[in-house]
């Protein structure tokens, strides 16, 4: 490999340097029909699953074909997306917050031709490259984090369980049969880069073992006070240890106070806590960010632990499917998963979804815990 210079001169880093320019201006990228009708849209319809029709006050229409995607994408795949955009959409496209891709055309005939083209494109293993769906009362794409692909603190993978769960959810992605939209999110540790704590279904990687303490190097690579103050439960204290006859500064972890959040590891690389047996996922349910009908709400833990089962996380996929199927059968039209669980009562939710209620599910973290206990004699048997 011969080094190819971009033009950057390391001896004169400021020469011709361009900084602080931010992103490209969005207006450069609008399809013409969007540019013309911005702020003047009248209403929309969902013509069929994955195909939106927006009608402008001018009478113009734009048809949007939404396709699912793995957010981990190659250059080759993105070039194929570009080729599709060139072929059907005058070179325009957009991505959604939930990692879907949207292709926009101006007529229903063009939308149908586009859908037909997209549906023929598959990877050699048989999976769709561009599955059309993700609109209306469906399970849309899962927003997720990096997992084993690129993260140093995960308690589970992200792309693997997402693929496994979406394979199970595929018919719900491509149809609009649910009582309301279902938003699934996955975070591979409690740092929650994806902030999944307000999702209908939140899948979250957790650890279950307190950190290893590498006494022999801790004081060389960590600031002991930072490691101590990183702990939200006060489980870490400074201590002196003897290693090979030498007195070293280190920390001691009170295992019974540790809730395995991993914040100490973020501050100190000598406190790793990932573990084959200890790590796995929890399932949280019933959160939402929309203000529709009811206020936004946090997801609640419904399953306290499922082990990591690569490559296809079968237990996780099965439990998620069960919850969605019961919800689909029982909830009223427009009722989000959390609203349904609150209406029937959480005791009924656990019974109907055939989930064990264990002591892990009772909050014991700080003051808000009290407000989740029941100060009433009103409940269901």
């Amino acid at each position, binding site marked *: 490999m011969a*080094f*190819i210079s*971009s*033009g*950057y001169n*390391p001896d004169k880093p400021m020469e011709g*340097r*361009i*900084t*602080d*320019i*931010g992103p*490209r201006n*969005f207006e450069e*990228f609008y399809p013409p029909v*969007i540019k013309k009708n911005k702020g003047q849209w009248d*209403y929309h*319809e*969902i013509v069929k699953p994955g195909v939106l029709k927006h009608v402008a006050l001018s009478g113009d229409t734009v048809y949007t074909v939404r396709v699912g995607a*793995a957010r*981990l994408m*190659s250059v080759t795949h993105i*070039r194929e*997306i*570009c080729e599709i*955009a060139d072929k059907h959409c005058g*070179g325009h*496209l*957009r991505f959604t*917050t939930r*990692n879907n*891709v949207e292709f926009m055309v101006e007529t229903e005939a063009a939308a149908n031709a586009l859908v037909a083209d997209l549906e023929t494109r598959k*990877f050699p293993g*048989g*999976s769709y*490259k561009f599955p059309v769906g993700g609109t*209306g009362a469906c399970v849309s794409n899962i927003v997720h984090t990096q997992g*084993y692909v690129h*993260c*140093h603190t995960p308690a589970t993978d992200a792309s693997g369980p997402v*693929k*496994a769960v979406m394979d199970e959810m595929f018919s719900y992605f491509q*149809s*609009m*049969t649910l009582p309301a939209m279902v938003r699934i999110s996955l975070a591979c540790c409690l740092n929650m*880069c994806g*902030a999944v704590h307000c999702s209908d279904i939140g899948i979250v990687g957790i650890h279950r073992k307190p950190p290893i303490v590498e006494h022999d190097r801790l004081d060389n690579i960590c600031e002991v006070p930072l490691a101590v103050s990183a702990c*939200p439960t006060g489980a870490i204290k400074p201590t002196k240890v003897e290693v090979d006859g030498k007195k070293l500064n280190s920390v001691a972890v009170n295992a019974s106070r540790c809730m395995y959040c*991993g914040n100490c590891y973020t501050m100190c*690389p000598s406190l790793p806590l990932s*573990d084959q047996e200890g*790590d796995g996922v929890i399932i949280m349910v019933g959160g939402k*960010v*929309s203000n*529709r009908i*009811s206020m936004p709400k946090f997801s609640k833990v419904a399953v306290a632990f499922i082990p990591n089962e690569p490559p296809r996380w079968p237990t996780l996929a099965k439990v998620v499917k069960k919850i969605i199927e019961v919800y689909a059968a029982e909830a009223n*039209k*427009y009722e989000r998963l959390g609203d349904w669980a609150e209406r029937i009562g959480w005791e009924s939710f656990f019974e109907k979804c055939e989930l064990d209620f264990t002591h892990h599910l009772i909050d014991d*973290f*700080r003051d808000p815990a009290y407000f989740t206990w029941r100060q009433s004699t009103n409940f269901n048997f």
Partner: protein
Amino acid sequence: MAKHQTPLLDQLETGPWPSFVSDIKQEAAHRAANPDGLDYQVPVDCPDDLLGVLELSFKDKETHWKHGGIVGVFGYGGGVIGRYCDQPEMFPGVAHFHTVRLAQPSGKYYTSEYLRGVMDIWDLRGSGLTNMHGSTGDIVLLGTTTPQLEEIFYDVTHKMNTDLGGSGGNLRTPADCLGQSRCEFACYDTQDLCHTLTNDYQDELHRPAFPYKFKFKFDGCPNGCVASIARSDFSVIGTWKDDIRIDQDRVKAYVAGEFKPGGGSHSGRDWGKFDIVKEVVDRCPTGCMSYDGAKLAIDNSNCTRCMHCINTMPAAVKIGTETGASILVGAKAPILDGAQMSSLLVPFVVVEQPYDEIKEVIENIWDWWMEEGKNRERVGETMKRLSFQKLLEVTNTKAMPQHVVEPRSNPYIFFKEEEVPGGFAHDEKAYRQRHMR
């Protein structure tokens, strides 16, 4: 012939959902074939080695990426995340595998020409793998080596007119919904506000000066498609102050079945004929609607703008015309003191260029948080530690009932000394004249 055997990952190639494994393999094959005759600037087989290290993680059920690594470009304190493999001899192609975050355009609209330009740079100087997009919103370029960082920065700024995104104790790359560009619900131009603030705060985005990360997100309406209320320290959510607009002829058309409820959002199942009373009037959370068989009426003074009627009959029921936004502050994920959603600070603000009123709120919050925030404390945690009253004080906001769901149920009230006649000092002598010891 694959470089590594990946029997576990191979099982993720079947099933209908797009397989990231197939896609990485596709990229590995592309680089091996090298149809464009590139002189790849990072190991040609890094996609193979990424599959290898991922297979090992699937076997071990543990990650194989090391903790940290401080790398970046000259003059910036963010935008690049250092990443090193903990089995570099087994997987030399990904031994150094840093992430580069690029600032995405507001609304995530692209042209193929632009994306191809970015991909050409990444094909030559990176792994050929990306995330479209990261959780915060950036274009994430996944995996390159340290010597390529300045070259990539030079290329993206000079050729693509694009900057890096945020990381660390910075303003993170702001993100928005597509807003008025293609949505009739949008109450303000999310894209313009997002783009303007991103550019106005480039210094805060590139040079760490905050206690911790700070995120802006912009939702055009209370449906919250970009989830700002859960995912951003500073959440701007579109709303309106005047009456919901009703087109009574179109209401009749919905009742008659000429328009599909929800635009057809529930059409995959037979829910029966659309029943406006059952599905709209009775589902209104404030009970402020009525339908007499001919006319839909809304008592707007009791409406809380939940969007249900508008979502269900988008052609007939529309947001008002006196539009703007609510500002909520302090959302964060569980680390450290539990998850938080943003809390309402400014019930209504007009959203118009040059956005000075919004910027004043932002800068007042930053001044306070940079002064009082502890290391790695999100502003939501500072609010909890120092009180919502303090946030009101530093943003010159008057307390109002809209700020709370309900008033406090404990009597432990802090009064300011000037609020008490005579201040906090007692007349001890007079007291003891009234009360013998």
